[in-house]
């Protein structure tokens, strides 16, 4: 029996009697982060990082939660469990599982670049590494955050000169908080959609020092938005809610914006390939840095990425999980509150295609 097995309820550690990010209700769930495809309702008990706790409470309501710090060792039936920063969003963690000298690490979602608020990803040495591969193709290599922020700021400045409202689309948990500081440098007021405002309030109450935002409400005169920045989640894109902004220019922040076709499909005025996932080089370096003898790849371009790992001499295999995409096509997400019924386009599936002549 492997230390962690792939069951129809999710990743299961039998020796420790717990699941990691299960997609069905279980007795004990270890949660990597608060995105809806990783943190699902219905389990008896949840273990998560301190910073994830308020987000889980917001999303799943009262429950039996056990918050822990990074590197804090918890023992469950002789299995030692600890969480380590994953750099994906606030509170996001990798899960290290050790039993009788054998170490497995479940990455959850992660990115290798430090974004200033999500903790700094650190590769954890292990025997077996289970890694995501959302952007596991070499066409996905991100520009440094500073450069992308500058592009976004230039875009906002140009909109200001043209008397436009800059509407920036990004996920209510993660992208929205990550952008705030850079936005504050170029705009007086940052307006935000209710879903983002909810997360923001929760984080403020938890003691996070974030730049102030103002919730978009029907009472605000439309003209006050002009020249300012509005933050909105993907589900608001193209909805009636968006029509209130005078001369809106829409910019989407998502790793998928790396490819022109995707950007054109979304009909945005601008696309910024700003992602909370590791890019191709980030994934490769992380996998190598763990020193793992065996790597399981899931979620994204798992077929291509695992095949490549095998070719460079790393024992890899793909696994099917039900982690979807908070980033693109998550089903109705309670975090998004009042934006039901307007689901964004589905995410690209894994690129399992064989190759064909050009």
């Amino acid at each position, binding site marked *: 029996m492997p230390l962690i097995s792939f069951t129809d309820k999710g990743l299961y550690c039998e020796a420790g009697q717990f699941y990691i990010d299960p997609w069905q209700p279980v007795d004990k769930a270890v949660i990597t982060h608060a995105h809806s495809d990783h943190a699902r309702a219905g389990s008896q008990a949840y273990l998560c990082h301190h910073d994830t706790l308020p987000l889980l409470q917001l999303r799943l309501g009262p429950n039996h939660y056990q918050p822990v710090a990074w590197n804090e060792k918890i023992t469950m039936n002789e299995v030692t469990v600890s969480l380590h920063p994953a750099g994906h969003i606030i509170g996001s963690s990798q899960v290290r599982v050790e039993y009788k000298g054998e170490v497995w690490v479940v990455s959850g979602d992660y990115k290798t670049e430090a974004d200033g608020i999500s903790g700094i990803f650190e590769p954890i040495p292990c025997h077996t590494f289970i890694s995501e591969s959302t952007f596991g*193709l*070499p*066409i*996905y*290599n991100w*520009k*440094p955050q500073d*450069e992308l922020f500058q592009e976004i700021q*230039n875009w906002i*400045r*140009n909109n200001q*000169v043209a008397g436009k409202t800059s509407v920036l689309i990004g996920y209510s948990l993660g992208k929205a908080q990550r952008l705030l500081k850079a936005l504050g440098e170029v705009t007086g007021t940052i307006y935000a959609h209710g879903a983002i405002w909810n997360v923001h309030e929760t984080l403020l109450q938890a003691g996070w020092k974030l730049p102030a935002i103002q919730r978009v409400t029907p009472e605000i005169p439309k003209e006050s938005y002009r020249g300012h920045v509005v933050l909105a989640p993907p589900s608001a894109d193209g909805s009636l809610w968006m029509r209130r902004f005078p001369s809106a220019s829409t910019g989407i922040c998502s790793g998928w914006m*790396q*490819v*022109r*076709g*995707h*950007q*054109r*499909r979304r*009909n*945005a*005025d*601008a696309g910024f390939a700003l992602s909370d996932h590791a890019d191709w080089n980030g994934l490769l370096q992380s996998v190598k840095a763990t020193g793992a003898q065996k790597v399981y790849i899931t979620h994204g*371009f798992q077929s*291509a990425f695992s*095949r*490549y790992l095998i*070719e460079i001499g790393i024992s890899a295999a793909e696994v099917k999980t039900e982690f979807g995409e908070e980033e693109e096509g998550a089903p109705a997400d309670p975090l998004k509150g009042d934006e039901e019924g307007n689901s964004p*386009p*589905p995410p*690209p*599936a894994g*690129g*399992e*295609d*064989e*190759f*064909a*002549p*050009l």
Partner: protein
Amino acid sequence: MPERTPNISLEDTNTPLEAGAMVGGMASFAQLLFRLGTSTKTNEKLEALSGYFAHANEKDKVWVIALFSGRRPRRAVSGTQLAVWCTELIGLPMWLFQECYHTVGDLSETIALLIPEKSASTHSTEGAHTIGQPLHYYVEKFQQLEKAPEAEKKLFILQSWLELSSRDRFVFNKLLSGTFRVGVSQKLMVNALARTVQLEPNTIAHRISGNWDPASTTFTELLSEQLTQTDHSKPYPFYLAYALEDALPELGEPADWQAEWKWDGIRGQIIKRNDQLFVWSRGEDLITEKFPEFSILQNKLPNGTVIDGEILPYHDGQVLNFNVLQTRIGRKNITKKHLQEAPVGLFAYDLLELNGEDIRHLALRERRAALEELVLSLQLPFIQLSPVVSFTDWDELTTIREQSRNINSEGLMLKRRSSAYQVGRRRGDWWKWKIDPLTIDAVMVYAQKGAGRRSNLYTDYTFAVKDGDKLVPFTKAYSGLTDKEFAQVDAFVKRNSLEKFGPVRTVKPELVFEIAFEGIAASNRHKSGVALRFPRISRWRTDKTPEDINTLDDLKKMLQLYGK
């Protein structure tokens, strides 16, 4: 709007540059394309283009006019060569490149994304150097390289890849591989030019038409009257019609209108000037050599004659199925066999120049009279007047239109008898009134990922009809669904794919679609025995199951009825 100077001038005007744009170099051209590509508003596109024309260097402007009017440079290297060199440069296996290519849906972009980007700091420290070479430098270099040894091509391309930014590299690849397209109408470009030079859009449209070499023509020359006078081959911009929008009675008196059949062939202009004959297609390709039949006109037509007409497969007084012409379109050399098997005729629509005089401003009835006189005097069986369809009231015309398909016509054209021959696509005086397409219900059996804005989505489908208990694929169709429907079908394909053949998935035959098409012809290249003209999805029949689809016999019946 930029201010207009009082004198006729080809000088730049002073439009402020947008922040971040670099003057000159490939970057400003790439920036232009980016703005055109992301803007959904015509006015913004116009601004972007006129802003570019106001600041770009003279040679680049000429190339932009050439590129935007379909004068693409020929490809200097093959897609496979580019793919191989790219994988060598970045040290990745070819299968992974292919994987990326199928996800991106565009070779040029795949390469642009795979080559590592120079960091921002390198850009700024190198200063002026990073502005790079201008557009014309690259395009003209491609022309020189076309016949150069492979090693020389490779060296230049690899160096350029590493020097250029990702966005510029994408444009570079598009130009290099002969796949450059731009979603901007020629009309818009002409209007943008009209803002920077003191000329009427119609005049500009005419001057930039025809046969000129972007490498050796200057901007001033191109837009001057002189070149128009010395280039005897120069065609007039075609007048194109929109589809009829209102009910017929809205058009007014039937007597004010001339009705003709709408023919499905190659729209062209036949020009005789200075003892030379030129045949132009609507896409402004010179196709004189492709139709040796017309060479006799070199002696027969008087100098200073320009006829607008349709080149059709034609034999013994009958217009044939367009499919007949397919066999010789695209051939480099036309053989005797082609001439026999795919004979052509010209159906003359209009006369644009008579005795060296531009008569486009005359009323259609006057031009038609002159055209009739000319064509009848030729006495050539393969040069026909496009017949005028006589009718007394709109109801009668509606009945006549029903017969279109029987004579291999695709409907009717309505032209106001008092209309001048205008420039480009216009509403008001000319309308096309096409017959409804043929349709057939079919089930989707294969799917493949699309390109462009459909990258990484399964949007290209193959459809089948029933033949007993077998399914026979008979056509592909790529268009006709909304983005939302494409997303749903994409999700279906991902859940229900059976096998993979390269990038193609076989799909559980479950989804039924109505396929619309303009014509049908026998084909021995297709398993089904038929080839469709302009197939597309007309709607998703969620109310039907694969049991309800049409059969191969239904297709064959259509072939008998309409495939001649």
